[in-house]
């Protein structure tokens, strides 16, 4: 079973004859015998996912890494975090996915209006199954807990992903008056309710 280990801004992937998928062009070095091959459209999620991606504009470009050895992956010197999934679902912006192990399924979930504010596409990616996902973030990720009575509001640009039974709505923190002319700078935010974790990065770029 391939093992992903994060070390600050580099991800180490140990391959034992199996396969991982990684963001195209993210390999910085490797040891051993590893083959790199483009996964084709849809990030390997099959034709249906490819179609949905095309419609949603949630772009993702992954490559297959197979063989024996250790691959070092990195993206724009961003911090790396490995999330272990045990059959549950992680929702994450596709641009934050660095790599994932073999038996995970990537799909597209339509997120409604949210994409309009952040320019990150109208849809978001879900990762389901048993395995590991490596995500990158601008600065370390904070996991903020959402519980009933503890709603969390997040800047769309700082939002990385979420996990658990959460529902997300778009909120406007400003009165309609200030939308005309100067905005408040936080014109739209994402409000999370329910029970789960929201991953937030430390930069609002």
């Amino acid at each position: 079973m391939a093992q992903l280990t994060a070390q600050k801004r580099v991800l180490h992937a140990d391959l034992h004859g199996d396969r991982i998928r990684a963001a195209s062009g993210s390999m910085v070095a490797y040891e051993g015998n590893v083959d790199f091959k483009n996964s084709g459209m849809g990030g390997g999620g099959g034709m249906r996912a490819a179609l949905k991606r095309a419609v949603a504009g949630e772009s993702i470009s992954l490559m297959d890494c197979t063989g024996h050895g250790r691959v070092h992956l990195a993206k724009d010197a961003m911090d790396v975090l490995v999330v272990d999934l045990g059959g549950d679902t992680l929702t994450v912006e596709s641009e934050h996915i660095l790599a994932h192990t073999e038996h995970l399924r990537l799909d597209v979930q339509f997120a409604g209006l949210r994409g309009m504010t952040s320019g990150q596409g109208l849809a978001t990616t879900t990762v389901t199954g048993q395995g590991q996902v490596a995500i990158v973030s601008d600065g370390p990720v904070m996991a903020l807990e959402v519980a009933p009575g503890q709603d969390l509001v997040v800047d769309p640009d700082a939002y990385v992903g979420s996990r658990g039974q959460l529902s997300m709505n778009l909120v406007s923190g400003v009165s309609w008056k200030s939308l005309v002319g100067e905005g408040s700078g936080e014109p739209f935010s994402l409000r999370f309710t329910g029970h789960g974790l929201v991953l937030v990065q430390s930069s609002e770029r």
Partner: protein
Amino acid sequence: MTYPPNNPYGGGNPYGGQPQPGYGQPQPGYGQPQPGYGQPQPGYGQPQPGYGQPPYGGQPQPPYGGPPQPSGPPAGVPTTLNVQSLPDDDNVNPYVFCITLNGEWFMSKGAMLAYYGNVQFDAVTEYSSVQAWVGAKFSSPIYVQDWVVAQGHGKVLIGDRGFDLNAYDLDDGNLTIKASNLCAFSPALELKQSIVPGFVTLIGTGKFIASSNGPVIFVEPPFRADPDALLGWADCPSPSVHHDAQWMTQSMLGALSGALGRASGEERQYDFTGKGTILLQSSEVAREDPAVLRLVESQTQLLTNAQAGSLGQRLVARAQQQH
């Protein structure tokens, strides 16, 4: 889960050595000599134990756990934070600060990352029509468009481009800081525009949060600073501009050819004299400050029409050169 409220990293002081009361929460009273500042701080610049290393929090984290990993807890998994475990007016990590909001705070547009609770963000211009005191506290028309008033109760997380964030406590003092590095300040303080373009001065007693690209370096005058690396200064008289002597000689000789062309980028410094503290950041990367344009534009009123015309021509030529 219980966490020590002021130690979001779990065990150990993340910044190395001895417990520094409030990394980033410098010192009451800027003017006095500060033990520890000006000399290298232990822990800065060296690998930070406890950061990005395994047991971040110690305990297994239910939502992240999944099946227990044979190789121990996965590296770098962040501690789960919630309203209770977020620190009170302190850094969550070097790049994120948590403000416990109970009333109002001024915040730079876009600094908010996330918040819990009931918080309303209003443009300063909008808010001042409701609350007249805002105009007295925020005395800078140039910057007013870039600021919001956060109002309500809750915990607000702020960040700035992933830069290091530090909180500063002013005790009946004054501190001038690069406007694009100021993230938030308490309305107990008064903001005024500095005479030096691109800088604002905070006066009074209260807390503010500023970002720096790399750790902040504190020095005492007499000192010359590169304008890009200069973050701010406290208690010093305003700096004068110092030009490299050799460059001055050359540009006086070549004055006819237009001195602007022969810049190495390092011939101009800000010169500080007198008593006080100067704050530097360890990088020179500057952010485009939209207010500087407004500031310069407002000063063109000093020009006669003919002068303004020739300035316009020079600016057009410069814009064309850069393409």
